[in-house]
């Protein structure tokens, strides 16, 4: 249900307002409740009008009477749910949709006070900050042409001095080559990198992972930006950027990928995050980089796409025990385990040409990657050095052997496999996944959730004529990712996660992934483009095909 994207709901609300007039008095009343910062300072009259139309429609939802939610709205949502989930949502009917819409407090969502269903709540001050940044504001129409919001400028015209911090803090570049500083960052993130305090899980990035994620070819030390307490030098906040070449439709942008923004829990009131964002932007600008890509669980102005997490449960007993999933009322745990059991040995291992990726494969993998990714609206361009870094450098200590799929190496963060055609020795496919455990907060028995995340993959099959239409691609992906699941299971991962992007929707359901409650919003900084197809199709672009970027 919540896969009815936020943008979509707004559209629905607006459409509805065209057909149902409401008096202006009510609209005004609601306008007062809008957070100050959520109205963009540059908003045109047209935009304002649109906004109040939406509010009018929403207001009509709130109004008294038996039929609070207009029939058209219910119908549109219901259709949407049915087309996206088919029979997986057996309870979707008029009454439940109606009740759901009431519970979701759609108005709060549109005002940015919360995500759908009150999830992903955050302070309204956030939008005030984003209202000052070169990002598309909520409610803006899709641009007619792609392009920047603020022009690039020579580095001499970029602000030369760092943004000021409250007097008890100082800026500090965090040198991840230094084990002690890497450890400080790990400490900060593992204790504070969490969105809300009712959370049961918190990401636990390993030290190896952080190095792998933050030191790709061309990394820049000024882009690993920390804030320390002046008196005792304790690291209390962090933000990072890495250089990327991102293709967004027709344009190739030399941009940065911003990630790992983290502020110590006790400093959340200091509003350090906006300063961190402005300072990392300045550091990027000094290097001639004026666009950025980032992902956030919550809705900010304005997502270019939204993807949904899906989870393939492997260690059912543990996942039920820690509340990650639960036993449906019509079955037993034992049955659930039977249903989710995967084979002991990868199917493509013996005659299919499956083996671990090696250094010698890099040119072919890079070539296959670049041809495969062209099928998506937004993706990263990788040169061979980058392919080597992303797929091989995180493979951990120890030799590769025929049996290395059975057991992870010391410090392994990424698992990369290729299919080599036994006759031609050509690499026809590859798949990769990475390890990102989470701390399980306050559980008596288990303290870490071992999660694997599907990373990049590619197959020649996708590039053959008609392979998508006649189901060959789906079949091939099920073989490949099916083996990824087996390898992950052997490596004692509890769950294997994948987003609704790229070609994933073709295999998620049949490989028994379950829908997650987490959404991932994709954002572009200082770049306008129309929405890209993530968990919902956009125009005639099917689900997932807009997004080819997996962020760590």
């Amino acid at each position, binding site marked *: 249900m919540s896969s009815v994207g936020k943008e979509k709901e707004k559209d629905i609300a607006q459409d509805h307002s065209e057909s149902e007039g409401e008096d202006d008095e009510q609209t005004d009343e609601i306008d007062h409740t809008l957070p100050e910062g959520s109205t963009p300072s540059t908003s045109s009259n047209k935009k304002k009008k649109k906004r109040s139309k939406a509010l009018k429609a929403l207001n009509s939802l709130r109004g008294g009477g038996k039929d609070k939610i207009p029939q058209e709205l219910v119908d549109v949502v219901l259709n949407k749910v049915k087309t996206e989930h088919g029979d997986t949502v057996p309870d979707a009917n008029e009454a439940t949709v109606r009740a759901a819409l009431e519970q979701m407090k759609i108005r709060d969502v549109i005002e940015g006070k919360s995500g759908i269903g009150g999830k992903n709540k955050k302070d309204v001050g956030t939008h005030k900050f984003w209202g000052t940044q070169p990002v598309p504001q909520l409610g803006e129409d899709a641009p007619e042409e792609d392009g920047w919001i603020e022009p690039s400028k020579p580095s001499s015209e970029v602000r030369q001095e760092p943004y000021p911090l409250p007097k008890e803090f100082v800026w500090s570049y965090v040198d991840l080559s230094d084990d002690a500083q890497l450890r400080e960052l790990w400490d900060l993130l593992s204790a504070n990198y969490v969105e809300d305090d*009712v959370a049961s899980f918190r990401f636990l990035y390993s030290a190896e992972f952080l190095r792998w994620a933050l030191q790709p070819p061309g990394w820049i030390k000024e882009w690993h930006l920390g804030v320390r307490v002046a008196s005792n030098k304790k690291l209390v906040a962090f933000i990072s950027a890495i250089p990327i070449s991102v293709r967004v439709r027709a344009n190739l942008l030399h941009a940065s990928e911003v990630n790992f923004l983290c502020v110590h829990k006790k400093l959340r009131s200091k509003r350090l995050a906006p300063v961190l964002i402005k300072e990392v932007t300045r550091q990027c600008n000094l290097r001639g980089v004026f666009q950025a890509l980032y992902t956030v669980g*919550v809705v900010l102005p304005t997502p270019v796409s939204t993807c949904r997490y899906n989870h393939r449960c492997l260690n059912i007993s543990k996942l039920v025990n820690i509340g990650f999933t639960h036993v449906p009322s019509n079955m037993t745990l034992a049955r659930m385990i039977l249903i989710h059991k995967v084979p002991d040995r990868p199917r493509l291992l013996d005659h299919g040409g499956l083996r671990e990726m090696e250094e010698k494969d890099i040119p072919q993998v890079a070539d296959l990657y670049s041809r495969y990714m062209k099928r998506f609206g937004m993706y990263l361009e990788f040169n061979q050095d980058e392919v080597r870094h992303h797929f091989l450098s995180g493979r951990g200590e120890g030799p590769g052997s025929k049996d290395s799929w059975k057991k992870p190496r010391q410090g392994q963060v990424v698992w990369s496999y290729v299919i080599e055609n036994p006759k031609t020795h050509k690499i026809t496919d590859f798949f990769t996944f990475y390890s990102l455990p989470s701390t399980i907060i306050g559980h008596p028995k288990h303290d870490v959730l071992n999660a694997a995340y599907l990373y990049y993959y590619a197959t020649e099959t996708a590039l053959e004529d008609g392979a998508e239409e006649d189901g060959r691609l789906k079949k091939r992906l099920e073989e490949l990712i099916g083996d990824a699941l087996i390898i992950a299971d052997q490596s004692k991962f509890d769950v294997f996660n994948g987003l609704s992007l790229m070609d994933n929707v073709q295999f998620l359901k049949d490989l028994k992934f379950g829908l997650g409650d987490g959404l991932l919003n994709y954002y572009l900084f200082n770049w306008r483009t129309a929405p890209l197809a993530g968990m919902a199709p956009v125009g005639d672009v099917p689900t997932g095909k807009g997004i080819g970027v997996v962020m760590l």
Partner: protein
Amino acid sequence: MSTPTPSPRFEEAAAYLSSAPSLSKVSDTVKLELYGLFKFITTSHSPNSSRPSIFNITGRAKWDAWKQTETTYGDRDGNAEERYLQLARELGWIEGSVQSATQSSTSAVPPATKPGDDDEDIWDDEETTKRHQGSSASMGNTHVSTITEHEEAERIAGTLHEYAVTGDIHGLQAFLQSHPTTDLNEKDEYGYTPLHLASDRGHLPIVELLLAKGVDSTIKDQDEFTAVELARVSEHDDIVAVLEKAAG
């Protein structure tokens, strides 16, 4: 969080309410408040599962009621219990009139260790008591996704198998009193006996009650599992022991 320690008075009121005829006449609001208080007192202060999906309206309302209880009473267990007793009295409970049922069915969960708050306090202590909002202008993916509640058909409340699944011992006792001739070995539409379900879900008091009533513990489910096998898979050692002992 604290270890739930329901008092005998509470147990008695709960036992009364589990079969109180007056309960059928009260509004959903009162029922939900009772539910929230009950879970708050017997299980934990706040729900330990994620919020049920919006299609699971009943489950979601119950979850919200539980959460609301936490918001209202915080750590004041006494006040929560007082309120529960008050509602029970309003619904006709007279203290001392009900034989307290079996000892508390709730397994006492050890208090969760509070996540490390041992950092040196160098700044704004007063802020830490405020409810943290999201990490404001955050970038980076900081929410760990979990499986959404499945939208499976809910079991019909007040049936033999529903009591076995939910572990509602008082409900089951009342049911058995009013339906003395029920076949306790009956399989539900999915092929499970009440003993299968209680053994799988880990409800020891229900298992004990069913065994005392002489149910057949050798019946196999659709996957050829007996109750003891289900309990073993689910690592409910106490139930495994009881079932093995019953089998002799």
